[in-house]
């Protein structure tokens, strides 16, 4: 049985359909990646799971039972690391943790011990007596993370937890996520940083326009992805002669690359046509190579390259 299941979640804001139909399952000890462009419905989905937004339809199950977050006892099962910092800057790290710990029912030596444990885990013990407003961005993110773990939740939702964070803090946070998952916590990890998701997650769910576009292991998703063909060219002019066949990318070093998308079924014919036209234009093809499949390519292939609001 899955630890957490989201089943046909749907949510509208007036006439705007934010989440049309999202379903996925999370296992204990798993880090599930949740990907989607801006406005895709990720945050709305996470808020519905966390109980901050009631879905118009659909339900969330925890251990097979309806996960009704109106019940305080069930709220203890869930930890949320929001995208925006949610700590009190005028309080120290100790004070922040003690306050939120008390809200979750921790007291006395248990609270004290748990706070110390998390401060050590997030590398904040030495700075714990300073007010949070004096912390660097990375330290604030780590404290933000620690608060969500105080009450030992069974499900942890992280919404872009490493935004604006230095590489050291990011690496530290990712290690913390791994150790949390290793302890049996089910983690939903939303991020725009594909390399993070690839390093943390076995399975990903890709959402766009409120719908689930893909939900599978990364390995399986990438195996179905055909590689792009990259032609490094020089000389002559590559103008409109390749429109509809390939795209032209100009590198920072002045080099030009012609890319034939891997998802074209007629890739071989397109390659021949492109080579002929380049030759006619006096363009020299220096090298042809295939681009390695990765999550970013998969994401862009599924969601498109157009800019989002």
């Amino acid at each position, binding site marked *: 049985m899955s630890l957490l299941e989201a089943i046909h979640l749907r949510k509208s804001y007036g006439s705007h359909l934010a989440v049309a139909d999202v379903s996925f399952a999370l296992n204990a000890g798993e880090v599930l990646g949740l990907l989607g462009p801006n406005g895709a419905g990720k945050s709305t989905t996470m808020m519905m799971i966390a*109980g901050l937004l009631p879905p118009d339809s659909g339900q969330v199950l925890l251990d097979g039972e309806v996960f009704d977050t109106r019940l*305080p006892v069930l*709220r203890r099962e869930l930890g949320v690391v929001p995208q925006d*910092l949610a700590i009190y800057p005028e309080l120290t790290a100790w004070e922040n943790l003690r306050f939120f710990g008390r*809200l*979750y*029912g921790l007291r006395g030596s248990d609270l004290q011990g748990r706070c110390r444990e998390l401060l050590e885990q997030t590398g904040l013990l030495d700075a714990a007596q300073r007010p949070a407003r004096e912390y660097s961005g990375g330290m604030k993110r780590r404290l933000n993370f620690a608060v969500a773990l105080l009450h030992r939740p069974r499900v942890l939702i992280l919404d872009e937890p490493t935004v604006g964070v230095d590489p050291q803090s990011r690496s530290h946070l990712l290690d913390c996520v791994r150790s949390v998952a290793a302890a049996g916590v089910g983690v939903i990890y939303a991020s725009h940083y594909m390399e993070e998701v690839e390093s943390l997650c076995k399975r990903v769910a890709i959402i766009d326009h409120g719908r689930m576009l893909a939900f599978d292991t990364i390995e399986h998703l990438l195996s179905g992805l055909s590689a792009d063909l990259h032609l490094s060219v020089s000389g002559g002019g590559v103008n409109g002669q390749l429109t509809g066949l390939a795209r032209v990318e100009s590198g920072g070093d002045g080099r030009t690359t012609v890319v034939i998308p891997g998802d074209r079924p007629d890739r071989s014919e397109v390659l021949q046509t492109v080579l002929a036209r380049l030759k006619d234009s006096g363009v020299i093809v220096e090298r042809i190579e295939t681009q390695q499949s990765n999550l970013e390519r998969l994401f862009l292939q599924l969601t498109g390259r157009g800019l989002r609001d």
Partner: protein
Amino acid sequence: MGAWDITCKDLKLLLRDRRALVLLLLLPLLFIAILGMSTGQFLTKEDGPSRYRVAVVDEDGSELSSHVIANLKKHGQISLEDYPSRAAAEEALKKQETSALLAIGPAFEEKVDELTLRDMFGREQGALADGPEAVHITMQVGPSVGDGELIRYFLFGEIYRTIFPVVARRNTIMRPYLPREEDESEASSVTEATPEPPVPTEPVKKASNENPVYRFLVPGFTVMFVFFLINIMARSFIAERDLGTLRRLRLAPISPVAVLVGKTLPFYLASVLQTSLLFLSGRILFQMSWGPEPIYLIPVILCTSAAATSLGLLLAAWVQTDQQVSAYGTSMVLILGGVSGCFIPRAWLPDLMKQLSLATPHAWALRAFDAVLAKDAVDSIQVHDYCFVLLLFAAAFFVGGWWRFRQAI
């Protein structure tokens, strides 16, 4: 428990906010002190002659002149100061160190001995037709005193009251109906210990060194600044939302009501503390009287604070930004304070304004404080009624705030 944890957290944050502490504590004290010093003379003018200082010179030195002066000193309406000579008194009058001069001439007793009962009963026709000069008494009033005639009339009236039994006792028919001379001298020998019950237009009891202006200023500005708390409270709610911590509170296993109570309670406690400190300061710094039964201040303070913090909750529920807090909150405080009588005594407000002011919790708070501070005896039922109305305001504001917050929490 969640509510109490939130309360402790917000109290901690409030105590670390120096600007809030200045606004809540120091600023009202400053207002009270400045206004008390600069407008005290003006604001107590309606108390009438009790404001006036009268320089008295006894050139007669007789038992009768001493008796007259002693009786005048018993009055709470004037402050009599002895001067050694007429010249010194006139100098003080010229420098406006005193409001009026009363000189009892060396022939005072002799002139009184010449008076008959006919002169006493027919003042306009007899020897007293010339006024106090007929008994060798001179009165001068300073140029800055507007109601000089009233003071002359009052002084001469009191002198007449004192000399009447002396003159009347010479008449054998009147004598049995007059108090014995020993009784009169016993009464007049008590110089300042037990003053006569005053005959003022308003029933006011003063502490020995109290400037009665503070009996208005302290409650008035305390009420106004207590309601200034709504700005700080609203900012706290906005900060909670802007920091993202409101979302964490919603995720925590505590009810929305507990969140609201937890956020409101610290400001209630701060309000009670603020009011108590301001009244304590009024007592220590300005010798303000707490009235005959200060215990009644407690329910008034508690109910005023309840109304103020509930109004803060209502404001917090409606505003979205700091700028809106400044605009709406400050305007509300100043307008309600002005309408209700925080800035000028309620007794001076036009009747229509007095009626309108009853739509504000401020007015009921001021009435309640007045009932405790400014009367000879506290009417407990009246205080109870005023407190009940304040609690009604508190309940209405809280329900309004809760209804609005329900959608956000």
